């Protein structure tokens, strides 16, 4: 039998505790929704909080992704053993096609050099590349994003293009000291100005969280065919022009679908590319300057797409 004093305390304390708990749930839920509103309005505090926490956890994720990477290597090794014959046949075909392309490329290179001399062309600034490891995937049904183990101290900045060997994968949207988040092209919120094939038709490439991208704001007069290459247009000044993205995979009434070159499932190492954008200068100061166009790797792709296939 508890003493009478304790009984009274319990009689008051228990309902109080229940009330406090209910109040706690409501406060925390309200806080969560307030944070979402703050995040939506892109407040600096929220972004700084995100990047600081990311910075803290990136070493852990980096350490964890190593063993996962080796497991992945083993499975891909087994896969490649079983597919050896088929892959060999495919590679032979690709090799033959690329050899024909090489001839075209050499020809175009000579032609290009000659034309550049004629125009007294000054090449644009070269891109600097930062290699980074993918240490975090999104795994969420709501976002398509990646985390990299390189950040501002490696030279990564917001807006930089992220690519793998085959094409553009996304762009950097958040940068911490040693971490960065990449919004993939497939994300719902990704919008990239692009140009289609050699015709010069422009559109906005958008993602919808699925594997395929679609074209938005496409001119109704545009003549689009399946198989056309899609590259960045460089409009808006945030990305360079000519980065390969993918090929048109379907054209129908509802819209145009684009199959990206990048296999988003297998991204392990990526390249973060920093292009120094050309700055507009007064005509008198830079009379002989011509817009640098696309330097570096993308240039080859652009030229390749301009040449007629052999």
């Amino acid at each position, binding site marked *: 039998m508890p003493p009478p004093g304790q009984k009274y305390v319990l009689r008051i304390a228990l309902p109080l505790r229940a009330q406090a*708990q209910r109040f*706690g*749930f409501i406060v*925390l*839920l309200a*806080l*969560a*929704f*307030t*944070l*979402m509103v*703050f*995040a*939506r309005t892109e407040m600096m505090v*929220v972004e700084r*909080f*995100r990047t600081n*926490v*990311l910075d803290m*956890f990136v070493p*852990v*994720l980096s350490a*964890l*992704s190593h063993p*996962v*990477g080796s497991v*992945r290597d083993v499975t891909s090794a087994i896969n490649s053993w079983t597919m050896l014959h088929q892959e060999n046949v495919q590679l032979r075909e690709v090799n033959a096609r690329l050899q024909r392309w090489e001839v075209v490329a050499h020809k175009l290179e000579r032609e290009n050099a000659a034309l550049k001399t004629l125009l007294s062309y000054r090449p644009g600034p070269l891109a600097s590349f930062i290699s980074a490891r*993918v*240490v*975090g*995937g*999104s*795994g*969420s*049904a*709501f*976002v*398509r*994003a*990646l*985390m990299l183990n390189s950040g501002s101290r490696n030279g990564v900045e917001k807006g930089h293009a992220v690519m793998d060997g085959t094409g553009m994968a996304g762009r950097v949207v958040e940068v911490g000291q040693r971490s960065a*988040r990449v919004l993939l092209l497939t994300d*719902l*919120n990704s919008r990239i100005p692009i140009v289609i094939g050699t015709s010069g038709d422009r559109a906005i490439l958008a993602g*919808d*969280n*699925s594997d395929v991208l679609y074209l938005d704001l496409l001119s109704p007069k545009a003549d689009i065919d399946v198989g056309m290459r899609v590259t960045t247009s460089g409009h808006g000044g945030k990305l360079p022009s000519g980065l390969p993205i993918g090929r048109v995979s379907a054209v129908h009434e509802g819209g145009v679908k684009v199959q990206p070159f990048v296999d*988003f*499932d*297998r*991204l*392990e190492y990526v390249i973060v590319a920093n292009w120094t954008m050309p700055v507009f200068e007064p005509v008198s100061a830079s009379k002989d300057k011509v817009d640098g166009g696309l330097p570096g790797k993308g240039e080859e792709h652009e030229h390749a797409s301009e040449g007629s296939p052999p």
Partner: protein
Amino acid sequence: MRIEVEEFLRRLEVGLRCTLPTMVTLSLVVLCAVPYGIPGLNKVMPLLPLLSVYFWSVHRPNLTPVLGHFLIGLLQDVLVGTPLGLSAAMFVGIHAAVHYQRPFFHGKTFLVLWFSFALLMTIIVLLSYMVVATYNLSFVPILPVLLQLSLTIAFYPLLTRIFQWTLRALMRTV
């Protein structure tokens, strides 16, 4: 002196065992953020941390503070890239739902608990879907969301078996 040290170690051990539920949820959040390079899994990872929140809220409510769940939810939002506060709200939602239905959960069989989890998850995930659609002011494809939901429900028997084992082996006394 020796008795004091032993007492300290015993308390430390009990303390560590008490933090196990929170630690399990935290580790699941981090493990789910690692890229596995398995086609498909990168896109829809089952919501294992939510499963852990449910299990421990049902079985050891005294060891799972709601503030801890809120903070782990925030960490998940940062690591995964979802709107900050979304997972935190989901975690607190599951915790609160279990808290208010405690008399119902008491002494129920595995199947009933599984079914309740499926029902609760469906409600929470659909609510979060609506929040995300409002947040983005656009239509969000629902198929990956439903796939993620079903995967999470399918993982329940396996993961709860591991949790049960942890409970029996390490937390019998707490």
